[in-house]
């Protein structure tokens, strides 16, 4: 906060300063040996300047007065340049809000970034893989990120969160592999042995079966469900896309868009997702119901998309960057309600012939408004035969719509899991989805590996 206030003092009269201090440690491994270990300690100061309804940002990691002053001047000059063509639509900076809700997203022990702990996690993982005659690949990582916002409207906010993530891929000599991961706010919430054993259990010595193109009943593990929901957030729940008519829920709020078993919310303070106190416009996070009993209820907004929406719409605290992202707001704490199934075996029980999917890979939208995606399965795809998960299956390509899958969802497990991709491009922003496994009908397979 001290740095944010120093920068604010140098910034123009209508400004917001966001300071993010990342400390992180990430250890990679392959073939049961360490490969790369990366520690980052960096601070980003981002100054948002406003001018006649326009915003512009400039950022630096030079924290001396000269660096901060130059950055403030760049932001102000850019905002003035933006305004040269006429007034903009940005509704102005947020003012101070009510007291922030408390959360349990920081763990002091995790913030130590202890490399010995990383080394121990790798040793335990290698031992489990060796027990099974397999090689281990993956990542163990922890992060400590402190965010402070100070603005000319009097906002003074700070939040410090930690996160821990581990993924393990066990692989046999023939290339058959199994995946497992765990995410928590604290490193103590991840047991490397449990993760490694789960990954090893997905490696089957049986020969790979193959399925051709067609539609099949499917059981999706939480990792697969979580990735689909992340895309759903970007394509359907993004308030900017919604306002522009590009969103998958445009003109569909208040209507059934999924089976009644689907209830989805964004719960930033719920203990199980990685919690957040406020968004990048300094708006306090709050729970929001997005789909209730299959009926679309709301999309998420930042201040910019809310202003465009009109009709009294307000930011829901989902700005992805200061001043709002050009791509629009996105939910980062999605929670999909669980169902009644005791586990994945119960989900598979009614399926005569279908597919069991551990995770999805290289998923990209084909037609955004239809939430039509394509991608591959990876590291743990199995055939379901006569109600049982039986043989490993060659990975398949799917091309299917998220909305169609949510409409064809037949059952969900009681148990939910916090899942994340664990990709840390740019400044670390750990987030995840809490979701169960689910069974859906008609999963569209458009190709298979050989």
């Amino acid at each position, binding site marked *: 906060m001290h740095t944010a206030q120093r920068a604010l003092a140098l910034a123009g009269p209508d400004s917001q300063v966001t300071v993010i201090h990342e400390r992180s440690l*990430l250890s*990679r*491994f*392959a*073939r049961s*040996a*360490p*490969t*790369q*270990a*990366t*520690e*980052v*300690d*960096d601070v980003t100061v981002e100054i948002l300047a406003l001018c006649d309804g326009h915003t*512009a*940002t*400039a*950022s*630096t990691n*030079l924290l001396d007065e000269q660096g901060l002053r130059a*950055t403030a001047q*760049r932001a102000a*000059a850019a*905002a003035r340049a*933006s305004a*040269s*063509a006429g007034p*903009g*639509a940005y509704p102005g900076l947020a003012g101070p809000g009510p007291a922030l809700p408390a959360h349990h997203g920081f763990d002091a022990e995790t913030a130590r970034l202890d*490399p010995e702990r*990383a*080394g121990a996690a*790798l040793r335990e993982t290698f031992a489990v893989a060796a027990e099974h005659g397999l090689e281990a*690949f*993956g990542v163990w990582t922890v992060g400590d990120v402190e965010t402070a916002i100070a603005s000319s409207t009097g906002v003074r906010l700070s939040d410090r969160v930690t996160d821990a993530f581990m993924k393990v891929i066990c692989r046999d000599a023939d290339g058959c592999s199994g995946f497992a991961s765990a995410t928590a706010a604290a490193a103590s919430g991840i047991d490397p042995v449990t993760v490694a054993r789960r990954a090893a259990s997905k490696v089957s010595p049986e020969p790979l079966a193959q399925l051709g193109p067609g539609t099949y009943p499917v059981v999706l593990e939480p990792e697969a469900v979580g990735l689909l929901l992340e895309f759903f957030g970007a394509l359907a729940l993004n308030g900017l896309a919604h306002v*522009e008519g*590009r969103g998958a829920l445009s003109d569909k709020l208040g209507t059934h868009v999924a089976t009644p078993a689907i209830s989805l919310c964004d719960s930033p303070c719920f203990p199980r997702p990685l919690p957040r106190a406020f968004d990048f416009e300094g708006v306090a996070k709050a729970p929001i119901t997005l789909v209730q009993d299959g009926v679309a209820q709301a999309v998420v907004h930042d201040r910019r998309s809310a202003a465009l929406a009109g009709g009294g719409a307000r930011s829901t605290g989902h700005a992805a960057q200061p001043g709002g992202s*050009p791509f629009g707001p996105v939910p980062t704490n999605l929670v999909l309600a669980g169902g009644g199934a005791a586990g994945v075996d119960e989900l598979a029980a009614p399926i005569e012939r279908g597919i069991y999917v551990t995770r999805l*890979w*290289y998923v*990209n939208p*084909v*037609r955004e*408004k239809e939430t*039509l995606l*394509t991608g*591959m399965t*990876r590291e743990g795809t199995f055939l379901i035969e006569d109600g049982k998960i039986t043989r490993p299956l060659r*990975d398949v*390509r799917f*091309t299917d719509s998220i909305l169609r899958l949510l409409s064809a969802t037949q059952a969900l497990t009681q148990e939910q899991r916090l899942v994340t991709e664990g*990709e*840390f*491009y740019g400044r*670390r922003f750990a987030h995840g989805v809490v979701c169960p496994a689910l069974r859906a009908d008609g999963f569209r397979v*458009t*190709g298979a*590996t*050989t």
Partner: protein
Amino acid sequence: MLGLLTELMARAPARCSYAEARHVTTDQEDLLVRNGRVEQIDSESADGIGVRVRAGGGWGFAATRDTTNAGMERALTRALAIAESQPATLVGPLAPVPPARGHWSCAYHQDPLAISLEDKLELLFAAEAALRTDTRIVRSEAECSSRRVRSAFASTEDAALTQERVECGAAISAIALDGDELQVRSYPSAHGGSAACAGWEHVLSFDLVQHAPRVAAEAIELLTAAQCPEGRATIVLDGDQLALQIHESIGHALELDRVLLGEASYAGTSWVSPTDLGALRYGSEQLNITADATLPGGLGSFGWDDEGVAAQRTPLIEAGVLRAALSDRQSAAAIGLERSGGCARADGFARQPIVRMTNVSIEPGDAGALEDLIADTGEGLFLQTNRSWSIDDRRLHFQFATEAAREIRDGELGRLLRSASYAGVTPQFWRSMDAVCSAREWRPRGLGNCGKGEPGQLMRVSHGTAPARFRDVQVGVA
């Protein structure tokens, strides 16, 4: 700064078997005009050092914004502690490299970061306005980016060098919407446009304003265009889509760290094995692929890679036969190569170098101009501008969608088709290529968003391409 790095490296040999330090300063500016307003002006400056060491059982890397002598020493100490905490393992040698010394910078005429915001906005406003030709264009955008990266590198093997690169790029795009039908057209390419290691003259060469009405008109036309048919067809890929096809199904597949399973935890592995080098028929005899870090204007060009290995030009595939892979010092040594392929690259100061593409290009063929190739094709589809891409973790099975397709009938381009897509298997697909346009159609296409590594790194690469023809391809899959 190079002096401080050199002094740091002089203190390191007593504590580790190898160390290197990079100081990187990045200045970047991104502008976006949307629907008649400035949507984004972001400028970013970052400055810091990354120290990588090899000690005990493995590698350690520490990055910090503190570039004082004390900050560098702390980073070195931390990198050592991280390396030594790793489980002990047998470490192989690094491919030898002569000590790199000197300075390299890319050629450019007009520094893009010296062009005023006002001048840039004038160009973007003009281009964006020319896109707004129909009320069904719900989003019209013009954007540009400018970037300068200065770096210094020193190692315990006596490397001491500095480099400077300047990059810029631009694009326009129009999204048309009618009911639930949404179509998009972009120019000169999708996903943020085509960038180059060049000055502002590169952006001006696109002539965005002149192309904008065509881009908008095609987006509108696509709303009511016929659906791309499903089945098997001869396809001609334009240079932009071919660049991504090369990137995904050749470039990544030939990264030696993937081949050796070092990237299995994230980006994946490869369908290629080390024993395939020199023997595998990757594609048809028309397929000649080169990795060239010396290509003028290439985003993957440099003087030395981020391990201090000099830039080189390496044939990867000759007449369809696999000849070489993309390697760094560690992966090259692992398969017994005498030298690194010079493909170690890092994204800024806070990431360590990993195996990356440089400029991986298809060599021009002898099919003449695009119109000659179309005339020679008879019946088929001409696919333009990527809209969606996906490939499996071995880089074998792919599916791409393009913004637009045009029928080829009787050797001429015909009507526009919407929602075009095609799919294939890497070696079969490249073996089906029977023609590549000639050198006059060949040019580098810059991609700025290649993701790989953990923590994630975005790399910038170029692919030189000319339109090419493929026979009997599965189309209309999505």
